[in-house]
C-alpha cells in the first residue's frame, strides 16, 4: 500500500472522499508514523488511538453520506497543547495545568471537527508558549527532525516537528511573537500567522491576548491555505473576532505574481543576520522577480524597538492572564501549605517553570504602581508607531519579504542560557504580532549543515490571500531545495 504520509493533506482527503482509502486508515497511518518516530522527536504530549478511531468512524459515516465534502474531510490533525480540546488533556506543557481536561471546546478545534478532521493528539510546546525552542516544556524538549541535536524552534515546536517528521500532515500552532513562523522556518514546513481576529481565540489559553493568533502548519502552501480556510471563522464568543467577507483562501492558490510589489526592508538585513540565511532569501527574492514581481529595498523603520515593546506588552498581559492558575479551580496545587496565600505562592512557584516565572515577574513589574506609564504605556505608544510604519510600507508594497529568523535552528541547550539573546531571535517576527498583520513562513533552502531556512512574507491586515498567492507561486518555482527529507 502507498505511504499515505507522503501525500498532501488535500490529496489524502480527495482519496478518502473518493472511497480509495478510509478515515480509519489515514488515522492509523499517522499514529503508526507517530509511534515509529516520536520516541526520538517527542513532538506529541498526548495521543489516543481509540478516541481517534471512534471519531474516524463518525466522520467516515458523514463522508459516505455526502455530508462532509470539505477539502480536508477525513484528514488527521494535531493540535498544540495550549488549544482547548474538549475531553482531551490540555496543559500548555506546564505542571500547573497537570490533569486539566477542558469541558469546553476551543472554537478552532470545533472548526476542525466541523471540517471533518480527526484530532489525533496534542503537540509539545514551550511552557505557556513562552520560548523559542520548545525546551521550556514540562515534558522535556522536542527535537528537530532534520537533526535531533537541534531545537525545532518554538513555541509551536511540537506542531512543526510533527509535520516535518511526517507524523501528521497538518497541525495547529499559535503565534504570539513568531511562535508559528520561526519553528516552521527551523523545521522546513509552511506556517501562517493570520491577521489578528481571523481565527477565534476562544479556548486558546492566553499568553499575550492582544498578540495571540492560532494558525495552520503544513507541508505545503495548499494544505496551509486549506487548513486556514477551515479554522477561520467569526466567533461571537471572542470579542476580538472579525467577520471576513471572504473565507475562500484556497482561491488565492494561483501561480501569478506579475506586477506584485514586494518590499524588502533594508533594516532586516544588517548585523545579526546569518549569511547562510541571507543567501537563500536573496535567491527566493530573485525567483519572485523572475516571475514578474517588482522587488525593491526600502527602509521600514522601528525595527529595533519591536522586541522591547513586545516583551513589555506580552509579559504584562501574561502576568495578568496567568493569575488564574492558583491551585483553586483546576490544575496543580502544592501538597503542603499554611493558609491561603502560602497555597497560592507554593502552587505557583512549584507549578510554573523558570521562563514563565521570569516573564510573570517582568510583567508584574512593568504594570506596578509608578512604572505603568514609563513602561507599559510607552510600549503601547511604540506599538502605535510600529503599526504606522507598516501602514506606510503597505501603502507602497503588497508584500514585505524577510527572513523568518536570523539563523537556522540552534543546537539544543544553546539558547536558554542567555534569554536576551533568545529574545533577539524574534526580531523578524514580533512586529507582525504588534501590528496585527498576517505572515507566512515558507522553506526556501538549506544551510551548509543541512538545516532548513525559512522565508517570511508579510501582508497588510486581512490580505492573507495576497501572501498565499505569492507563497504558492514561489513554491511552484523554487525547485527541489531540500534534496532529501527530514529525518
Amino acid at each position, binding site marked *: 500500500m502507498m505511504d499515505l504520509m507522503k501525500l498532501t493533506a488535500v490529496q489524502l482527503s480527495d482519496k478518502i472522499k473518493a472511497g480509495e482509502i478510509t478515515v480509519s486508515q489515514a488515522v492509523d497511518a499517522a499514529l503508526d508514523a507517530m509511534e515509529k518516530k516520536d520516541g526520538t522527536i517527542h513532538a506529541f504530549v498526548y495521543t489516543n488511538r481509540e478516541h481517534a478511531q471512534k471519531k474516524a468512524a463518525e466522520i467516515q459515516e458523514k463522508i459516505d453520506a455526502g455530508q462532509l465534502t470539505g477539502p480536508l474531510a477525513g484528514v488527521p490533525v494535531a493540535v498544540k497543547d495550549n488549544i482547548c480540546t474538549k475531553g482531551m488533556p490540555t496543559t500548555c506543557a506546564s505542571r500547573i495545568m497537570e490533569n486539566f*481536561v477542558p469541558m469546553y471546546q476551543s472554537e478552532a478545534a470545533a472548526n476542525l471537527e466541523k471540517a471533518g478532521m480527526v484530532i489525533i493528539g496534542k503537540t509539545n510546546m514551550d511552557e505557556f508558549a513562552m520560548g523559542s525552542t520548545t525546551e521550556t516544556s514540562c515534558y522535556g524538549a522536542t527535537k528537530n527532525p532534520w537533526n535531533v541535536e537541534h531545537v525545532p524552534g518554538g513555541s509551536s515546536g511540537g506542531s512543526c516537528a510533527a509535520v516535518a517528521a511526517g507524523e501528521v500532515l497538518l497541525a495547529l500552532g499559535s503565534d504570539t511573537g513568531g511562535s508559528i513562523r520561526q519553528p516552521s522556518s527551523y523545521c522546513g514546513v509552511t506556517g501562517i500567522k493570520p491577521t489578528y481576529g481571523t481565527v477565534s481565540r476562544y479556548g486558546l489559553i492566553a499568553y499575550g491576548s492582544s498578540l495571540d493568533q492560532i494558525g495552520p502548519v503544513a507541508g505545503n502552501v495548499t494544505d496551509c491555505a486549506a487548513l486556514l480556510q477551515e479554522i477561520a471563522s467569526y466567533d461571537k464568543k471572542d470579542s476580538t473576532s472579525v467577520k471576513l467577507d471572504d473565507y475562500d483562501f484556497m482561491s488565492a492558490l494561483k501561480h501569478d505574481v506579475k506586477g506584485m510589489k514586494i518590499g524588502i526592508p533594508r533594516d532586516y538585513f544588517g548585523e545579526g543576520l546569518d549569511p547562510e540565511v541571507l543567501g537563500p532569501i536573496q535567491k527566493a527574492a530573485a525567483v519572485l522577480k523572475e516571475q514578474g514581481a517588482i522587488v525593491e529595498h526600502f527602509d521600514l523603520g522601528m525595527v529595533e524597538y519591536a522586541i522591547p515593546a513586545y516583551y*513589555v506588552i506580552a509579559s504584562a498581559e501574561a502576568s495578568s492572564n496567568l493569575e488564574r492558575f492558583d491551585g483553586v479551580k483546576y490544575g*496543580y496545587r502544592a501538597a503542603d501549605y499554611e*493558609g491561603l496565600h502560602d497555597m497560592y505562592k507554593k502552587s505557583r512557584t512549584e507549578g510554573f517553570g523558570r521562563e514563565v516565572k*521570569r516573564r510573570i515577574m517582568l510583567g508584574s513589574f512593568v504594570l506596578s504602581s509608578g512604572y505603568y506609564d514609563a513602561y507599559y504605556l510607552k510600549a503601547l505608544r511604540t506599538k502605535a508607531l510600529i503599526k504606522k510604519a507598516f501602514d506606510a510600507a503597505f501603502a507602497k508594497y503588497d508584500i514585505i519579504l524577510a527572513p523568518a529568523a536570523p539563523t537556522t535552528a540552534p543546537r539544543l541547550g544553546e539558547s536558554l542560557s542567555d534569554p536576551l539573546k533568545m529574545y533577539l531571535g524574534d526580531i523578524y517576527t514580533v512586529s507582525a504580532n504588534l501590528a496585527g498583520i498576517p505572515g507566512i513562513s515558507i522553506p526556501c533552502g538549506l544551510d551548509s549543515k543541512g538545516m532548513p531556512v525559512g522565508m517570511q512574507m508579510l501582508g497588510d491586515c486581512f490580505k492573507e490571500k495576497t501572501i498565499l498567492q505569492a507563497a504558492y507561486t514561489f513554491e511552484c518555482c523554487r525547485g527541489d531545495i531540500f534534496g532529501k527529507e527530514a529525518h
Partner: protein
Amino acid sequence: MAEIITDETIDYVSILAKLKLTEAEKEDAKADMQKMLNYIDKLDELDTSGVEPMSHVFSFDNVFREDVVTNQDDRDAMLANAPLAKDGQYKVPKTVE
C-alpha cells in the same frame, strides 16, 4: 536612565505575582530583570509624545451579547478539574480570621 532593581523590588514583585523565590532565584531574577529593563530602556530613544497608546490594533468597537440566558449547568464537569471540592464548591484554605 535604567531603573535599578533592588532586593526590595524583587520582594515586592513576588508579592504581586504570588511567587516564592529562593535566595538564589532572587539573585537570578534581579539580574534578569535588570538586563531586560536596560534593554527595554531603548524605547526611551523614541519620541512618543502625542502618540495615543494602542491597546487594540483595530479600531473596532461595540461587540455585545444580547441579554439572553444561553448556558446550562455544567457544574460537575467543571468541578472534576478542581484540586479539592466539597458539596459542589471549590475548597480553599480558610479566608476569614
